[in-house]
């Protein structure tokens, strides 16, 4: 399941649905990652823009690559766009595999690609203005380790 949505989602509910969807399979290991809007630096809200025509196909490609590379049994991605307040959950990834190493690696791989190759852009709204978040040099470094 891949979803790009403005609406909030329930991490726990999705985690349970993901786990239930693995039943009967050999999924011994389930990893979830969720990203939360941090409130440091005086942040009031985060605004996420995306490129609708490209977002879903780009994430589908990443999920296919992660499944093939790590032998994942399943992988779900939910990513929100629009205006998000501090403490709101921005996105989540869930992966399943027979063993924990692959479930962890698959989730990290997906996060690194989502961060730098999925067409999302974040703008930080502060009390005195707003600014687009710059990509970090470390984001590319994270990707390089999968080469």
């Amino acid at each position, binding site marked *: 399941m891949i979803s790009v949505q403005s609406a909030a989602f329930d991490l726990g509910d999705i985690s349970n649905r993901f786990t239930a969807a693995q039943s009967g399979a050999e999924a011994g290991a389930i990893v979830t990652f969720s*990203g939360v809007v941090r409130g440091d630096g005086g942040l009031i809200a985060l605004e*996420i*823009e*995306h*490129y609708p*025509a*490209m977002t879903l*196909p*780009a994430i589908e490609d990443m999920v296919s690559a992660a499944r093939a590379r790590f032998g994942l049994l399943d992988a779900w991605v939910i*990513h929100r766009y629009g205006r998000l307040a501090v403490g709101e959950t*921005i*996105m989540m990834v869930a992966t399943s595999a027979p063993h924990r190493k692959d479930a962890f690696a698959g989730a990290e791989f997906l*996060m690194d690609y*989502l*961060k*730098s*190759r*999925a*067409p*999302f*852009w*974040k*703008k930080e709204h502060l009390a005195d203005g707003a600014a*687009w*978040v*710059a*990509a970090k040099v470390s*984001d590319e470094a994270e990707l390089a380790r999968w080469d």
Partner: protein
Amino acid sequence: MITVVYFAWLRERIGTGREQIETQAETVAQLVAELSSIDSYHAAAFADLRAVRVAVDQVLTDFDAPLAAAKEVAFFPPMTGG
């Protein structure tokens, strides 16, 4: 006729998220040169191409890429999702 779309600060600097362009450009780089000559806003947006990424028909590519029969070219800063 090609559709050009902009995101994040490129969209804000240019003042629109989408425009139709009549062009004979054969590569992304040639299209960028044409777009930069439209006005000072476009010129400012493309002033430093190291800060710009491009997708042709929703697939990430680079400035040397041919446009061929491309329908949509997107320009945006490095992604910051996740």
